[in-house]
Protein backbone atom coordinates (compact mmCIF):
# COMPACT_ATOMS: atom_id res chain seq x y z
CA UNK A 1 0.00 0.00 0.00
CA UNK A 2 1.44 3.40 -0.97
CA UNK A 3 1.84 6.28 1.52
CA UNK A 4 -1.01 8.27 -0.10
CA UNK A 5 -3.24 5.22 0.03
CA UNK A 6 -2.44 4.80 3.72
CA UNK A 7 -3.26 8.49 4.38
CA UNK A 8 -6.51 8.16 2.44
CA UNK A 9 -7.44 4.98 4.29
CA UNK A 10 -6.67 6.60 7.62
CA UNK A 11 -8.74 9.71 6.84
CA UNK A 12 -11.65 7.77 5.42
CA UNK A 13 -11.76 5.60 8.53
CA UNK A 14 -11.05 8.26 11.10
CA UNK A 15 -14.65 8.93 11.96
CA UNK A 16 -15.68 5.36 11.51
CA UNK A 17 -13.18 4.62 14.26
CA UNK A 18 -15.94 4.57 16.83
CA UNK A 19 -13.70 5.15 19.78
CA UNK A 20 -12.93 8.67 18.44
CA UNK A 21 -16.60 9.56 18.14
CA UNK A 22 -17.37 7.99 21.49
CA UNK A 23 -14.59 9.92 23.14
CA UNK A 24 -15.68 13.26 21.64
CA UNK A 25 -19.34 12.81 22.62
CA UNK A 26 -18.44 11.69 26.10
CA UNK A 27 -16.03 14.60 26.59
CA UNK A 28 -18.60 17.12 25.34
CA UNK A 29 -21.15 15.81 27.79
CA UNK A 30 -18.72 15.71 30.67
CA UNK A 31 -17.66 19.27 29.92
CA UNK A 32 -21.21 20.55 29.53
CA UNK A 33 -22.10 23.16 32.11
CA UNK A 34 -25.06 23.20 34.46
CA UNK A 35 -24.82 19.64 35.69
CA UNK A 36 -23.03 18.53 38.79
CA UNK A 37 -21.39 15.16 39.19
CA UNK A 38 -23.11 13.03 41.78
CA UNK A 39 -21.94 10.08 43.84
CA UNK A 40 -24.05 7.13 42.91
CA UNK A 41 -24.70 3.80 44.52
CA UNK A 42 -24.45 1.79 41.33
CA UNK A 43 -25.04 -1.93 41.08
CA UNK A 44 -22.20 -4.06 39.69
CA UNK A 45 -24.15 -5.85 36.95
CA UNK A 46 -23.17 -5.76 33.28
CA UNK A 47 -26.09 -7.74 31.87
CA UNK A 48 -28.74 -8.11 34.58
CA UNK A 49 -30.97 -5.21 35.61
CA UNK A 50 -32.34 -4.61 39.07
CA UNK A 51 -35.50 -2.56 39.62
CA UNK A 52 -33.78 0.72 40.43
CA UNK A 53 -34.15 3.46 37.86
CA UNK A 54 -32.10 6.59 37.30
CA UNK A 55 -33.02 9.45 39.65
CA UNK A 56 -35.29 11.98 37.86
CA UNK A 57 -33.36 14.62 35.91
CA UNK A 58 -30.03 12.83 36.30
CA UNK A 59 -27.86 11.72 33.41
CA UNK A 60 -25.41 8.87 33.71
CA UNK A 61 -22.72 8.58 31.05
CA UNK A 62 -21.18 5.13 30.89
CA UNK A 63 -18.50 3.43 28.86
CA UNK A 64 -18.18 -0.37 28.83
CA UNK A 65 -15.71 -2.76 27.22
CA UNK A 66 -15.85 -6.46 26.52
CA UNK A 67 -12.69 -8.28 25.50
CA UNK A 68 -13.57 -11.67 24.07
CA UNK A 69 -11.63 -14.76 23.12
CA UNK A 70 -12.82 -16.46 19.96
CA UNK A 71 -12.15 -20.06 18.94
CA UNK A 72 -11.96 -20.50 15.16
CA UNK A 73 -11.69 -16.74 14.70
CA UNK A 74 -10.02 -13.58 15.89
CA UNK A 75 -10.32 -12.26 19.44
CA UNK A 76 -12.21 -8.98 19.75
CA UNK A 77 -12.70 -5.90 21.84
CA UNK A 78 -16.30 -4.64 21.76
CA UNK A 79 -17.40 -1.45 23.50
CA UNK A 80 -20.40 0.73 24.01
CA UNK A 81 -21.26 4.15 25.36
CA UNK A 82 -24.49 4.51 27.25
CA UNK A 83 -26.45 7.68 28.10
CA UNK A 84 -28.98 6.92 30.81
CA UNK A 85 -31.48 9.61 31.75
CA UNK A 86 -34.08 9.59 34.51
CA UNK A 87 -37.13 11.13 32.81
CA UNK A 88 -39.31 10.55 35.88
CA UNK A 89 -39.07 8.45 39.03
CA UNK A 90 -40.84 5.64 37.14
CA UNK A 91 -39.30 6.00 33.65
CA UNK A 92 -35.66 5.79 32.58
CA UNK A 93 -34.60 6.18 28.98
CA UNK A 94 -31.22 5.20 27.49
CA UNK A 95 -29.31 5.58 24.28
CA UNK A 96 -26.42 3.25 23.35
CA UNK A 97 -23.75 3.42 20.69
CA UNK A 98 -22.00 0.11 19.96
CA UNK A 99 -18.70 -0.62 18.24
CA UNK A 100 -16.02 -3.28 18.09
CA UNK A 101 -12.45 -3.96 17.04
CA UNK A 102 -11.65 -7.45 15.85
CA UNK A 103 -7.96 -8.23 16.05
CA UNK A 104 -6.24 -8.71 12.68
CA UNK A 105 -9.42 -7.38 11.07
CA UNK A 106 -10.92 -3.89 11.56
CA UNK A 107 -12.67 -1.44 13.87
CA UNK A 108 -16.29 -0.68 13.04
CA UNK A 109 -19.36 1.06 14.40
CA UNK A 110 -22.00 -1.62 14.86
CA UNK A 111 -25.19 0.22 15.72
CA UNK A 112 -27.35 1.94 18.29
CA UNK A 113 -30.02 1.04 20.79
CA UNK A 114 -32.86 2.98 22.39
CA UNK A 115 -34.01 1.58 25.67
CA UNK A 116 -36.82 2.42 28.09
CA UNK A 117 -37.54 1.01 31.50
CA UNK A 118 -40.86 1.53 33.28
CA UNK A 119 -41.47 0.85 36.93
CA UNK A 120 -44.82 -0.90 37.15
CA UNK A 121 -45.61 -0.53 40.87
CA UNK A 122 -45.40 2.65 42.89
CA UNK A 123 -44.05 1.17 46.12
CA UNK A 124 -41.60 -1.50 47.15
CA UNK A 125 -43.10 -4.98 47.22
CA UNK A 126 -41.84 -8.49 47.84
CA UNK A 127 -40.94 -8.61 44.12
CA UNK A 128 -40.59 -5.40 42.13
CA UNK A 129 -41.35 -5.63 38.41
CA UNK A 130 -39.99 -3.28 35.78
CA UNK A 131 -40.89 -3.43 32.08
CA UNK A 132 -38.01 -3.02 29.65
CA UNK A 133 -38.53 -2.17 25.98
CA UNK A 134 -35.62 -1.65 23.59
CA UNK A 135 -35.20 -1.01 19.89
CA UNK A 136 -31.90 -2.20 18.41
CA UNK A 137 -30.53 -1.16 15.06
CA UNK A 138 -27.31 -3.15 14.85
CA UNK A 139 -25.26 -5.01 12.31
CA UNK A 140 -24.37 -8.69 12.46
CA UNK A 141 -20.88 -7.61 13.56
CA UNK A 142 -22.14 -6.35 16.94
CA UNK A 143 -20.20 -8.19 19.62
CA UNK A 144 -20.95 -6.35 22.87
CA UNK A 145 -22.87 -9.37 24.21
CA UNK A 146 -25.07 -7.08 26.27
CA UNK A 147 -27.52 -9.92 26.44
CA UNK A 148 -27.53 -13.54 25.27
CA UNK A 149 -30.71 -14.87 23.70
CA UNK A 150 -32.12 -17.48 21.36
CA UNK A 151 -29.49 -19.75 19.84
CA UNK A 152 -26.62 -17.23 20.11
CA UNK A 153 -23.42 -19.31 20.01
CA UNK A 154 -19.72 -18.51 19.79
CA UNK A 155 -19.42 -19.44 16.12
CA UNK A 156 -21.90 -16.62 15.24
CA UNK A 157 -19.08 -14.18 16.02
CA UNK A 158 -16.35 -15.73 13.88
CA UNK A 159 -17.24 -14.12 10.51
CA UNK A 160 -14.91 -11.34 9.34
CA UNK A 161 -16.28 -7.83 9.85
CA UNK A 162 -16.82 -7.09 6.14
CA UNK A 163 -19.16 -10.07 5.93
CA UNK A 164 -20.84 -9.81 9.33
CA UNK A 165 -21.70 -6.12 8.92
CA UNK A 166 -23.80 -6.89 5.83
CA UNK A 167 -26.46 -8.35 8.15
CA UNK A 168 -28.75 -5.74 9.68
CA UNK A 169 -30.82 -6.38 12.77
CA UNK A 170 -33.88 -4.34 13.63
CA UNK A 171 -34.91 -5.87 16.88
CA UNK A 172 -37.51 -5.16 19.50
CA UNK A 173 -36.31 -6.54 22.77
CA UNK A 174 -38.59 -6.82 25.77
CA UNK A 175 -37.67 -7.87 29.27
CA UNK A 176 -39.51 -8.37 32.49
CA UNK A 177 -37.14 -7.32 35.26
CA UNK A 178 -37.89 -8.72 38.70
CA UNK A 179 -35.78 -7.64 41.62
CA UNK A 180 -35.72 -7.53 45.38
CA UNK A 181 -33.28 -6.14 47.93
CA UNK A 182 -33.28 -7.67 51.42
CA UNK A 183 -30.71 -7.14 54.16
CA UNK A 184 -28.31 -5.63 51.67
CA UNK A 185 -28.63 -8.50 49.17
CA UNK A 186 -30.07 -7.68 45.78
CA UNK A 187 -31.49 -10.52 43.72
CA UNK A 188 -32.49 -9.75 40.13
CA UNK A 189 -34.06 -11.97 37.48
CA UNK A 190 -34.63 -10.88 33.90
CA UNK A 191 -36.69 -12.75 31.35
CA UNK A 192 -35.91 -11.75 27.77
CA UNK A 193 -38.06 -11.99 24.63
CA UNK A 194 -36.66 -10.56 21.40
CA UNK A 195 -38.13 -10.25 17.94
CA UNK A 196 -36.21 -9.30 14.84
CA UNK A 197 -38.79 -7.30 12.90
CA UNK A 198 -37.58 -8.73 9.58
CA UNK A 199 -40.18 -11.16 8.18
CA UNK A 200 -39.85 -14.80 9.14
CA UNK A 201 -37.69 -14.24 12.22
CA UNK A 202 -38.99 -16.00 15.33
CA UNK A 203 -39.26 -14.69 18.88
CA UNK A 204 -36.10 -15.56 20.79
CA UNK A 205 -35.77 -16.00 24.53
CA UNK A 206 -33.09 -15.60 27.15
CA UNK A 207 -32.49 -15.01 30.82
CA UNK A 208 -30.16 -13.19 33.19
CA UNK A 209 -29.96 -13.53 36.94
CA UNK A 210 -27.79 -11.62 39.36
CA UNK A 211 -27.11 -11.41 43.05
CA UNK A 212 -25.03 -8.73 44.76
CA UNK A 213 -24.30 -7.10 48.09
CA UNK A 214 -22.23 -4.13 49.31
CA UNK A 215 -19.21 -5.25 51.33
CA UNK A 216 -20.33 -2.90 54.13
CA UNK A 217 -23.92 -2.03 55.02
CA UNK A 218 -23.32 0.95 57.29
CA UNK A 219 -21.82 4.15 55.91
CA UNK A 220 -18.73 5.51 57.56
CA UNK A 221 -18.89 9.02 58.94
CA UNK A 222 -16.23 10.41 56.58
CA UNK A 223 -15.81 10.34 52.83
CA UNK A 224 -13.37 7.61 51.85
CA UNK A 225 -12.30 5.69 48.77
CA UNK A 226 -11.66 2.30 50.29
CA UNK A 227 -14.56 2.03 52.77
CA UNK A 228 -16.28 -1.34 52.43
CA UNK A 229 -19.64 0.27 51.61
CA UNK A 230 -18.13 1.64 48.38
CA UNK A 231 -17.60 -1.86 47.00
CA UNK A 232 -20.45 -4.02 45.73
CA UNK A 233 -19.68 -7.61 44.75
CA UNK A 234 -21.89 -10.17 43.13
CA UNK A 235 -22.41 -12.91 40.61
CA UNK A 236 -24.30 -12.95 37.31
CA UNK A 237 -25.45 -15.79 35.10
CA UNK A 238 -27.01 -15.34 31.68
CA UNK A 239 -27.80 -17.33 28.58
CA UNK A 240 -30.17 -18.18 25.74
CA UNK A 241 -33.36 -20.22 25.91
CA UNK A 242 -33.90 -20.91 22.22
CA UNK A 243 -36.73 -19.55 20.12
CA UNK A 244 -40.44 -20.16 19.66
CA UNK A 245 -39.78 -23.18 17.41
CA UNK A 246 -37.13 -24.80 19.59
CA UNK A 247 -37.46 -23.51 23.14
CA UNK A 248 -34.97 -24.90 25.63
CA UNK A 249 -31.25 -25.26 26.21
CA UNK A 250 -30.36 -27.06 22.96
CA UNK A 251 -27.70 -25.11 20.98
CA UNK A 252 -27.58 -22.23 23.43
CA UNK A 253 -24.73 -20.52 25.27
CA UNK A 254 -24.49 -19.68 28.96
CA UNK A 255 -22.12 -17.61 31.07
CA UNK A 256 -21.20 -17.21 34.71
CA UNK A 257 -19.60 -13.94 35.80
CA UNK A 258 -18.38 -12.60 39.13
CA UNK A 259 -18.98 -8.83 39.18
CA UNK A 260 -17.57 -5.99 41.24
CA UNK A 261 -18.38 -2.26 41.36
CA UNK A 262 -16.38 0.42 43.12
CA UNK A 263 -18.33 3.62 43.78
CA UNK A 264 -15.66 6.28 44.23
CA UNK A 265 -16.33 9.45 46.24
CA UNK A 266 -14.91 11.39 43.27
CA UNK A 267 -18.20 10.66 41.43
CA UNK A 268 -16.93 7.80 39.31
CA UNK A 269 -18.01 4.17 39.33
CA UNK A 270 -15.69 1.44 38.09
CA UNK A 271 -16.91 -2.03 37.27
CA UNK A 272 -15.09 -5.23 36.33
CA UNK A 273 -16.25 -8.73 35.52
CA UNK A 274 -14.42 -11.81 34.27
CA UNK A 275 -16.91 -13.99 32.37
CA UNK A 276 -16.65 -17.76 31.96
CA UNK A 277 -18.45 -19.72 29.27
CA UNK A 278 -20.33 -22.69 30.71
CA UNK A 279 -20.57 -24.91 27.62
CA UNK A 280 -18.94 -25.49 24.25
CA UNK A 281 -21.31 -23.04 22.53
CA UNK A 282 -20.11 -20.18 24.72
CA UNK A 283 -17.03 -18.00 24.42
CA UNK A 284 -14.49 -19.60 26.74
CA UNK A 285 -13.60 -16.32 28.44
CA UNK A 286 -14.60 -12.67 28.33
CA UNK A 287 -13.40 -9.82 30.45
CA UNK A 288 -15.64 -6.80 30.90
CA UNK A 289 -14.93 -3.47 32.50
CA UNK A 290 -16.73 -0.17 32.66
CA UNK A 291 -16.53 3.36 33.94
CA UNK A 292 -19.44 5.69 34.57
CA UNK A 293 -20.25 9.09 35.98
CA UNK A 294 -23.59 10.47 37.05
CA UNK A 295 -24.68 14.11 36.63
CA UNK A 296 -27.50 15.56 38.65
CA UNK A 297 -29.73 18.34 37.36
CA UNK A 298 -28.92 17.58 33.73
CA UNK A 299 -32.59 17.65 32.73
CA UNK A 300 -33.11 21.06 34.34
CA UNK A 301 -30.00 22.49 32.70
CA UNK A 302 -31.22 21.23 29.34
CA UNK A 303 -34.76 22.53 29.88
CA UNK A 304 -33.37 25.99 30.78
CA UNK A 305 -31.63 26.15 27.41
CA UNK A 306 -34.97 25.86 25.62
CA UNK A 307 -37.07 28.04 27.94
CA UNK A 308 -38.23 31.11 25.99
CA UNK A 309 -37.78 34.69 27.24
CA UNK A 310 -35.93 34.04 30.47
CA UNK A 311 -32.41 34.41 29.31
CA UNK A 312 -31.60 30.95 30.52
CA UNK A 313 -32.02 32.08 34.12
CA UNK A 314 -34.57 31.23 36.73
Amino acid sequence: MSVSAIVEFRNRNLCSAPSASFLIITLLLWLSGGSKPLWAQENPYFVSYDHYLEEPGNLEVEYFSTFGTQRAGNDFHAYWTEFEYGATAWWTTEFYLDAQSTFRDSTIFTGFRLENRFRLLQREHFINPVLYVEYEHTSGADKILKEVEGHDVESDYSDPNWLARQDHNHEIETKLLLSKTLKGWNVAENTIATKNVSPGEPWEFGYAVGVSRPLGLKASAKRCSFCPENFIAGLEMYGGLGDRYSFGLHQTSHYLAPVMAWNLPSDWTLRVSPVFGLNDNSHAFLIRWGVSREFSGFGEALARMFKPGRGGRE
Partner: protein
Amino acid sequence: MNRVSFRAIHACIRRSLFILALIMLALTGATAAKAQGQSPVSAKSDLYAELGKVPAKAAARRNPLENDPDRVAAGRKLFELHCLECHGEAANGGKKGPSLRAPEVQQSTPGTLFWLLTNGVVRKGMPVWSKLPEPQRWQLVSYIKSLNDVPR
Protein backbone atom coordinates in the same frame (compact mmCIF):
# COMPACT_ATOMS: atom_id res chain seq x y z
CA MET B 1 -0.87 16.42 9.91
CA ASN B 2 -1.94 17.31 6.38
CA ARG B 3 -5.03 19.31 5.32
CA VAL B 4 -7.00 16.19 4.44
CA SER B 5 -6.57 14.93 7.98
CA PHE B 6 -7.96 18.19 9.36
CA ARG B 7 -10.97 17.79 7.09
CA ALA B 8 -11.47 14.26 8.34
CA ILE B 9 -11.29 15.40 11.97
CA HIS B 10 -13.77 18.18 11.21
CA ALA B 11 -16.17 15.67 9.67
CA CYS B 12 -15.73 13.45 12.69
CA ILE B 13 -16.55 16.28 15.10
CA ARG B 14 -19.58 17.25 13.00
CA ARG B 15 -20.87 13.69 13.14
CA SER B 16 -20.31 13.57 16.89
CA LEU B 17 -22.17 16.87 17.36
CA PHE B 18 -25.05 15.54 15.27
CA ILE B 19 -25.34 12.44 17.47
CA LEU B 20 -25.07 14.65 20.57
CA ALA B 21 -27.86 16.88 19.24
CA LEU B 22 -30.07 13.81 18.74
CA ILE B 23 -29.42 12.72 22.32
CA MET B 24 -30.19 16.19 23.65
CA LEU B 25 -33.39 16.36 21.59
CA ALA B 26 -34.57 13.06 23.02
CA LEU B 27 -33.70 14.12 26.55
CA THR B 28 -35.42 17.49 26.13
CA GLY B 29 -38.57 15.73 24.97
CA ALA B 30 -38.49 13.57 28.07
CA THR B 31 -37.91 16.60 30.29
CA ALA B 32 -40.73 18.56 28.66
CA ALA B 33 -43.08 15.62 29.07
CA LYS B 34 -42.19 15.48 32.74
CA ALA B 35 -42.59 19.20 33.32
CA GLN B 36 -45.99 19.42 31.60
CA GLY B 37 -48.76 20.26 34.03
CA GLN B 38 -46.57 20.06 37.11
CA SER B 39 -46.81 22.67 39.84
CA PRO B 40 -43.75 22.54 42.11
CA VAL B 41 -45.55 24.11 45.08
CA SER B 42 -48.47 21.71 45.08
CA ALA B 43 -46.13 18.79 44.42
CA LYS B 44 -44.13 19.66 47.54
CA SER B 45 -47.17 20.01 49.82
CA ASP B 46 -48.53 16.74 48.43
CA LEU B 47 -45.32 15.09 49.55
CA TYR B 48 -46.00 16.06 53.19
CA ALA B 49 -49.43 14.46 52.85
CA GLU B 50 -47.67 11.19 52.04
CA LEU B 51 -46.31 11.10 55.60
CA GLY B 52 -49.83 10.51 56.85
CA LYS B 53 -50.28 7.47 54.61
CA VAL B 54 -47.51 5.38 56.17
CA PRO B 55 -48.83 2.10 57.67
CA ALA B 56 -49.03 2.22 61.48
CA LYS B 57 -46.79 -0.83 61.91
CA ALA B 58 -44.04 0.76 59.81
CA ALA B 59 -44.43 4.12 61.54
CA ALA B 60 -43.93 2.46 64.94
CA ARG B 61 -40.53 1.00 64.04
CA ARG B 62 -37.66 2.26 66.18
CA ASN B 63 -34.29 3.33 64.83
CA PRO B 64 -31.92 0.42 65.59
CA LEU B 65 -28.95 2.80 65.36
CA GLU B 66 -30.19 5.32 67.92
CA ASN B 67 -27.25 4.52 70.20
CA ASP B 68 -24.65 4.64 67.44
CA PRO B 69 -22.50 7.77 67.99
CA ASP B 70 -21.62 8.04 64.26
CA ARG B 71 -25.19 7.84 62.99
CA VAL B 72 -25.75 11.59 62.46
CA ALA B 73 -22.34 12.24 60.87
CA ALA B 74 -22.75 9.26 58.55
CA GLY B 75 -26.31 10.35 57.77
CA ARG B 76 -25.09 13.83 56.90
CA LYS B 77 -22.57 12.35 54.47
CA LEU B 78 -25.30 10.26 52.85
CA PHE B 79 -27.60 13.29 52.68
CA GLU B 80 -24.92 15.30 50.86
CA LEU B 81 -24.39 12.45 48.43
CA HIS B 82 -27.97 11.52 47.64
CA CYS B 83 -30.51 14.09 48.88
CA LEU B 84 -28.93 17.55 48.73
CA GLU B 85 -29.70 18.02 45.04
CA CYS B 86 -33.48 17.97 45.60
CA HIS B 87 -33.87 19.07 49.23
CA GLY B 88 -31.22 21.81 49.27
CA GLU B 89 -27.91 22.15 51.04
CA ALA B 90 -29.43 23.03 54.40
CA ALA B 91 -32.42 20.72 53.83
CA ASN B 92 -34.67 23.79 53.60
CA GLY B 93 -36.14 22.55 50.35
CA GLY B 94 -35.05 22.87 46.77
CA LYS B 95 -36.55 23.04 43.31
CA LYS B 96 -37.72 19.46 43.44
CA GLY B 97 -37.95 18.45 47.08
CA PRO B 98 -39.69 19.92 50.13
CA SER B 99 -37.99 21.21 53.28
CA LEU B 100 -37.02 18.47 55.69
CA ARG B 101 -36.98 20.98 58.57
CA ALA B 102 -40.75 21.48 58.25
CA PRO B 103 -42.83 20.45 61.30
CA GLU B 104 -44.58 17.77 59.21
CA VAL B 105 -41.25 16.01 58.77
CA GLN B 106 -39.70 16.74 62.15
CA GLN B 107 -42.80 15.55 64.04
CA SER B 108 -42.89 12.28 62.09
CA THR B 109 -41.60 9.13 63.75
CA PRO B 110 -38.27 7.65 62.59
CA GLY B 111 -40.25 4.68 61.27
CA THR B 112 -42.37 6.97 59.09
CA LEU B 113 -39.32 8.60 57.52
CA PHE B 114 -37.65 5.22 57.04
CA TRP B 115 -40.75 3.87 55.27
CA LEU B 116 -40.95 6.92 53.01
CA LEU B 117 -37.27 6.64 52.11
CA THR B 118 -37.67 2.94 51.35
CA ASN B 119 -40.76 3.30 49.19
CA GLY B 120 -40.33 6.77 47.74
CA VAL B 121 -43.26 8.69 46.30
CA VAL B 122 -42.64 7.59 42.77
CA ARG B 123 -45.55 9.32 41.04
CA LYS B 124 -44.48 12.65 42.60
CA GLY B 125 -40.82 12.38 41.73
CA MET B 126 -39.33 11.01 44.96
CA PRO B 127 -37.30 7.94 44.00
CA VAL B 128 -37.23 4.66 45.87
CA TRP B 129 -34.14 4.51 48.11
CA SER B 130 -34.24 0.85 49.07
CA LYS B 131 -31.04 0.44 47.08
CA LEU B 132 -29.29 1.94 50.09
CA PRO B 133 -28.83 -0.80 52.67
CA GLU B 134 -31.15 -0.57 55.72
CA PRO B 135 -28.48 0.75 58.12
CA GLN B 136 -27.72 3.60 55.71
CA ARG B 137 -31.40 4.52 55.51
CA TRP B 138 -31.55 4.60 59.33
CA GLN B 139 -28.43 6.81 59.33
CA LEU B 140 -30.22 9.19 56.97
CA VAL B 141 -33.28 9.21 59.23
CA SER B 142 -31.01 10.04 62.19
CA TYR B 143 -29.59 13.02 60.33
CA ILE B 144 -33.01 14.28 59.20
CA LYS B 145 -34.34 14.06 62.76
CA SER B 146 -31.30 16.01 63.99
CA LEU B 147 -31.82 18.88 61.55
CA ASN B 148 -33.55 21.25 63.92
CA ASP B 149 -30.63 20.87 66.36
CA VAL B 150 -28.19 22.27 63.83
CA PRO B 151 -28.16 25.82 62.37
CA ARG B 152 -29.84 26.49 59.01
